[in-house]
């Protein structure tokens, strides 16, 4: 295999494997991320998300397999590959004794950004992230949310083609997490920046990602668009119905075979493969029994339900 790959793919992982002693942390993971794509990497704790991210950025070598970043083999041309990326590692921090501005300029200089460009771009970023007024503050004076914003600024200051984010909004307040998500979407929309993001947050993955991969116990369990993944778990599609009458019981309604009913408040959620037909049945039976429907909705499974279905629970497959 050549050490260079066509650069139309931002990230190529081929049979990526990582062992720590006897423990197999990541097992033959392969995927590609196209240019301009936001790619989510989901998995329970200890599934291998961060290890995969660290191999992709070249922080740790793979035991087996290859990684190409912007066409460069990260093992053979690490420096050339890293010039195309910005990274916000998990649990990373800023330099506590440097000011916000010094932290930002340090990363720009490490990426070889010319002084005039880094000054202009640094100012723009600090404005975008509401950090301009704190440019002279030391890293140690910032709250966790502000530090995380600064870390994202540091990853973006070199205007990378590919942004790696390892749990970027973990533990942040709602406003900070939202601001970070907005900027990720903005950078992707306006600059066509490719984003690789690991997250526990299914809502975040659903909001941001064009495609997601789910890793469990080091094995890639699924990879697709959020919509296509939801369609995979047909059985979890449901109809939620609420009646004006509060005393309606499940047995009052004759449902098609293969469905299950769960009471919810003054209504029910009925799970089955054909929610459209179920809704029609319910409407007809309600009319026949003189019941009044207050609301009826067909519901697709959430990404969280897909995740639980694939991994066997919030803490992984057992």
């Amino acid at each position, binding site marked *: 295999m050549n050490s260079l790959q066509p650069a139309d793919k931002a990230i190529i992982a081929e049979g990526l494997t990582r062992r720590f002693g006897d423990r197999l942390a990541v097992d033959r993971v392969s995927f590609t991320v196209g240019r301009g794509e936001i790619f989510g990497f989901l998995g329970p704790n200890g599934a291998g998300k961060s290890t995969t991210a660290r191999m992709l950025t070249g922080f740790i070598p793979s035991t087996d397999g290859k990684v190409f970043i912007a066409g460069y083999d990260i093992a053979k041309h*690490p420096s050339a590959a890293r010039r195309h990326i910005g990274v916000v*590692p998990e649990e990373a921090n800023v330099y*506590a004794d440097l000011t916000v501005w010094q932290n930002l300029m340090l990363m720009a200089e490490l990426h070889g950004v010319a002084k005039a460009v880094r000054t202009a771009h640094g100012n723009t970023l600090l404005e975008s992230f509401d950090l301009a007024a704190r440019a002279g503050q030391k890293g140690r004076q910032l709250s966790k949310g502000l530090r995380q914003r600064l870390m994202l600024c540091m990853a973006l200051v070199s205007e990378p083609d590919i942004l790696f984010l390892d749990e970027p909004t973990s533990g942040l307040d709602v406003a900070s997490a939202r601001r970070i998500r907005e900027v990720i979407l903005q950078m992707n929309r306006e600059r066509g920046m490719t984003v690789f993001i690991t997250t526990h947050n299914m809502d975040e993955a659903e909001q941001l990602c064009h495609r997601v991969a789910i890793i469990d116990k080091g094995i890639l369990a699924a990879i697709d668009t959020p919509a296509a993944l939801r369609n995979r778990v047909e059985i979890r599609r449901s109809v939620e119905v609420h009646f004006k009458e509060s005393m309606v019981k499940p047995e009052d309604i004759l449902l098609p075979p293969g469905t299950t009913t769960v009471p919810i408040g003054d209504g029910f959620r009925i799970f089955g493969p054909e929610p459209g037909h179920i809704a029609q049945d319910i409407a007809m039976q309600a009319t026949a029994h003189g019941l009044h429907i207050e609301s009826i909705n067909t519901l697709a499974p959430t990404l969280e339900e897909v995740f639980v279905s694939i991994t066997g629970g919030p803490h992984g497959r057992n």
Partner: protein
Amino acid sequence: MAATDSALDDLLWQVRATWVVAKKNVMVYYLKPPVLTFGVIFPLFFYLAFAAGHKAPAELMVPGIVAMALFFTASAVGPLVTPWERQARTYERLATSPASLSAILSGDILAGMAFGVLLSFVPLAVGLALTSAEITHPLVLLAGLLLGALAFSGLGVLLAAPATEGPSQVMMLSNLLRLPLIFVSGVFVPLAEMPAWGQWLSPLSPLSYCADLIRVGFGAEPYFSLALDLAALLCFTAASVIGAHFFHRKTRDRVI
């Protein structure tokens, strides 16, 4: 296809990254009042404590103080930079920048070397001002300071390799190695006057060769030959740099 840079372009890039890392280290780790004070005061008092019981003329003490100050300062902070960065969670960001491991380690060495040379000028200036010590071979003195600082700083960076986030553990290892080296290096007692076991052990310490060069700079006769002093310091530097690169790489590979 993505284009690869020429080897020269990559080298220039890494040289620039080395400079940036060194600058960062100076700002973050070296320009601190306690570090500066410790760098000057500790070797001075350490030496004076020993010299108090001896009746050696003050001017003869100056090369020893300069050599020891250089050794302490150039190798003092280097062992702690990587553990501090791991502890503060700044290391991974640095390691995923375009700066190679070689550039990061070279930056660490450069910062330690600059710190050591600059602080060694303090006892040098004080010694020249307050005693009758004279520099007779400035180039030899300068070579001793620069090559000594390079070797000691390299040793410091090698000591930073163990996979720990606890700087205190590295500090203990560092002192365990550095303190015995002082006693066998002819800083307190000229090598020719040391007991046989000391003379056997002294070639194992880079400080022996550095102190020898500094003494020659002040007009003393060399214990080793000048060529051996220079070659030995270069060899110690090369061994430290190669070892540092090897062990830092291994440590990074083990990170979970």
